């Protein structure tokens, strides 16, 4: 419980820096010592039948540890035996008393870390029915996304049953020891379906105007409140559905839902924006941080109960100011604490520079829709918190390690190995650290956030005493002189030319030179390659008004970009009028033209005065030298197989903990 919190907040530097975050707030009759909340985050870590697992308990325990006495919320828990409310392959359940011991182990873990345990109940509605043929909704409204099941309209008996399931599940949460019950009603879930004029076309008392559409929600709130007594009940509701194009709720209606929820008795509201079916980005890095704060401010004008919000609030400065300005009451976080579960703790202790930053890529979400357990692009330990083998432990034998390459793979490996007690030297041929992320972070639409990882890794290297040798090219002489115990090659990829005539011409330039501004680029540009580097440089050039065409051998664009972010890039490419030829090759390059050869042999002439190389291959440089000297060798990151920042970081960590 919060009142048992072990933190003397005023004794930490973060208390003075962010005073508005580390002050108490009352939710119902419960006083929470700080205004930070780990928001409910789907993790797919339970057993497929809905029972808690070592992974799910380990995951939440680490977030509870990080939230330093604040509220730690479970992932959404479904409540019906028929599993129509279930939205993920391995989602937690509470439709029977047999789930109580598992739920208790989750609540206990949160309490043992001195934090407040909130259990979230969810019926996924039109985005649910993971294991069923049809999903439930107020009305039969066709799906916009083929990913989801066809909808069956709920009869009144189904509605009553669903209310009953909320009551019974809430009782089980209380028996398990939770301090707060939260009801989920956002982003396409059943409650949101009832509230929205897009999905609720009913003509009975559960449809019609906004009060009619809220009846189902009101019944749930009132009944759950009855069983909860003094235990606070919160709800998550959309402040903006972002469904104007299909007749979703107006902003005014959304605010009325908040007022009605407060009237019905909820003790706090967590606000959100967007549905799965919205055609606008909400939480990806192309949305500026703090963008959605206006929704919190608007909500505060309509209710007197505490207002919480996550959604692109990744650093403490914005929510601290918003709380101070009375635009927000509680700072919530999902993604930032997936990337670094100890984020609030580091803020409190004054170690913000040690926070592993979320890069807003949505890989975590993409995994859930593909029945895969939670993982994080930037945090290799995510979902492995319970597994000792993933932890950083002292090395059995201390070694001298030479890491060649100061990009993300090399830096991650370096600080992890150094923390384990090894003597680590990083050699970087350039005068600055970062590898190809230096250039990648110059691309538009939020890619500058990628560099945040480099800042974190640099800090961790300095903290752990990694010796940095900048501007130092490693060759056989250096290796021979140093004779380290182990060498880690993190030298990055090699950029490759095609074999067609013209690739040797002067108008063929490297993606790195384009992004760092040292290459001459004309007005009509062909990008060779159709993976992430190609997309980045295409957008970089198209934003300058250039006429850009992507030509690549992969059958689909952005094979290395996770699908929950790729749709954003595809949208921006379209918006910037970038033409794409996938599954194609380059036949010839001249001064003014590139011949594109389609997979079925058609030749398409494309006007181009510049060709940008983005195709990469593994980098074998120095492998032979290391092996000839009988030195232990590891190859990581793009030097092993060109992939992305995530793979580089994960490679670096995995080698760092075992070297």
């Amino acid at each position, binding site marked *: 419980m919060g009142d048992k919190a072990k933190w003397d907040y005023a004794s930490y530097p973060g208390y003075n820096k962010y005073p508005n975050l580390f002050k108490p707030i009352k939710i119902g009759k419960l006083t929470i010592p700080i205004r930070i909340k780990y928001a409910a985050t789907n993790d797919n870590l339970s057993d497929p039948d809905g029972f808690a697992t070592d992974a799910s308990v380990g995951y939440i325990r680490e977030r509870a540890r990080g939230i330093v006495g604040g509220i730690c919320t479970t992932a959404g828990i479904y409540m019906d035996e028929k599993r129509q409310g279930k939205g993920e392959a391995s989602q937690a359940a509470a439709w029977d008393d047999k789930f109580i011991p598992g739920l208790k182990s989750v609540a206990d873990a949160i309490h043992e870390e001195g934090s407040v345990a909130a259990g979230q109940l969810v019926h996924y509605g039109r985005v649910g029915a993971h294991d069923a043929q049809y999903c439930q909704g107020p009305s039969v409204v066709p799906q916009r996304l083929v990913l989801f099941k066809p909808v069956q309209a709920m009869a009144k008996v189904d509605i009553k049953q669903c209310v009953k399931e909320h009551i019974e599940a809430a009782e089980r949460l209380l028996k398990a020891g939770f301090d707060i019950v939260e009801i989920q009603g956002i982003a396409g879930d059943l409650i949101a379906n009832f509230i929205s004029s897009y999905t609720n076309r009913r003509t009975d008392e559960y449809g019609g105007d906004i009060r009619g559409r809220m009846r189902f929600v009101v019944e749930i709130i009132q009944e759950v409140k009855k069983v909860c007594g003094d235990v606070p009940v919160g709800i998550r509701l959309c402040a903006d559905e972002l469904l104007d194009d299909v007749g979703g709720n107006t902003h005014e209606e959304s605010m009325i839902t908040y007022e009605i929820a407060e009237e019905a008795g909820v003790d706090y509201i967590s606000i959100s924006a967007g549905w799965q079916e919205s055609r606008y980005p909400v939480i990806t890095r192309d949305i500026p941080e703090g963008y959605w704060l206006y929704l919190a401010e608007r909500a505060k004008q309509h209710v007197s109960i505490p207002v919480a919000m996550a959604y692109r609030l990744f650093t403490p400065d914005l929510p601290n100011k918003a709380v101070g300005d009375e635009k927000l009451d509680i700072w919530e976080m999902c993604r930032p604490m997936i990337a670094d579960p100890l984020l609030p703790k580091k803020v409190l202790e004054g170690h913000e520079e040690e926070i592993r930053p979320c890069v807003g890529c949505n890989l975590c979400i993409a995994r859930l829709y593909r029945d895969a357990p939670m993982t994080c692009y930037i945090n290799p330990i995510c979902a492995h918190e319970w597994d000792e083998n993933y932890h950083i432990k002292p090395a059995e034998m201390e070694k001298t390690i030479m890491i060649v390459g100061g990009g993300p793979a090399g830096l991650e490996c370096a600080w992890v190995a150094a923390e384990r007690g090894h003597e680590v030297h990083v050699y970087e041929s350039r005068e600055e650290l970062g590898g190809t992320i230096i250039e990648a972070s110059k691309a538009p639409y939020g890619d500058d956030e990628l560099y945040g990882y480099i800042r974190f890794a640099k800090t961790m290297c300095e903290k752990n005493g990694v010796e940095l040798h900048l501007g130092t090219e490693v060759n056989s002489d250096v290796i021979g002189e140093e004779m380290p115990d182990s060498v880690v090659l993190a030298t990055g990829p090699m950029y490759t030319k095609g074999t067609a005539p013209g690739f040797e011409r002067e108008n063929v330039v490297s993606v790195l030179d384009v992004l760092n501004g040292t290459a001459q680029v004309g007005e009509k540009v062909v990008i060779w390659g159709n993976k992430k580097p190609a997309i980045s440089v295409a957008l970089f050039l198209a934003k300058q008004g250039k006429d850009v065409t992507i030509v690549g051998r992969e059958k689909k664009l952005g094979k290395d970009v996770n699908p929950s972010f790729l749709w954003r890039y595809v949208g921006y490419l379209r918006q910037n009028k970038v*033409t794409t030829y996938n599954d194609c090759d380059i036949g010839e390059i001249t001064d003014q033209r590139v011949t594109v050869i389609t*997979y*079925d042999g058609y*030749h*398409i*002439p494309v*006007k181009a005065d510049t060709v940008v190389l983005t195709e990469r291959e593994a980098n074998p440089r120095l492998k032979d030298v290391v092996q000839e000297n009988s030195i232990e060798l590891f190859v990581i990151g793009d030097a092993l197989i060109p992939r992305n920042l995530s793979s580089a970081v994960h490679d670096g960590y995995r080698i760092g903990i075992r070297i």
Partner: protein
Amino acid sequence: MAVDPEKQISGLWKALQGSQGATRRTFYQMRQVLLEIAGPDANPLDLGVKAWEIIGKDMGKANLPRMNLLKGIEGLMMNVARAYQGLATTNGAVVNIEKGDNANELFIKWERCPWPTAAKESGASMEEDLKGCDTYLQAFLDEVNAFLGTNLKIETLKGIPSGDGVCIRRLYNPENK
């Protein structure tokens, strides 16, 4: 009026791909029609294979005017292989012809073919897809052999529907080993 060749060609290319897709969908839609009319006792495999036999015969007859035995059996074999290649390419496949170790055999290689994917999307088995294609090619060849009095044979060595990544078929003349 200025012509933008990129726009023209890419537009035509996309239209061709759309048309190829429509052909495949129509085939499987008609197969479904026949299955529904034939009732539950009909075997989809038999029906699909029969359809390809009819198509093969028809295409074989349509190609007879191009078949030339005046340049010998090797020339005829190349005629047949090129006809297979042309028909497959029209349908969106990528096909190459390679000469064998001796003059009496040719290898026809389908590097890519959209038909197995279409079969999968339409609920047809890979067995039906492979057998259908074999039957189609054989029916085509039967027409040529009957018309010119030859005895060319074709055999499947690898098949995309079998998971081989490519289809390789050997076209050969067994009477001149």
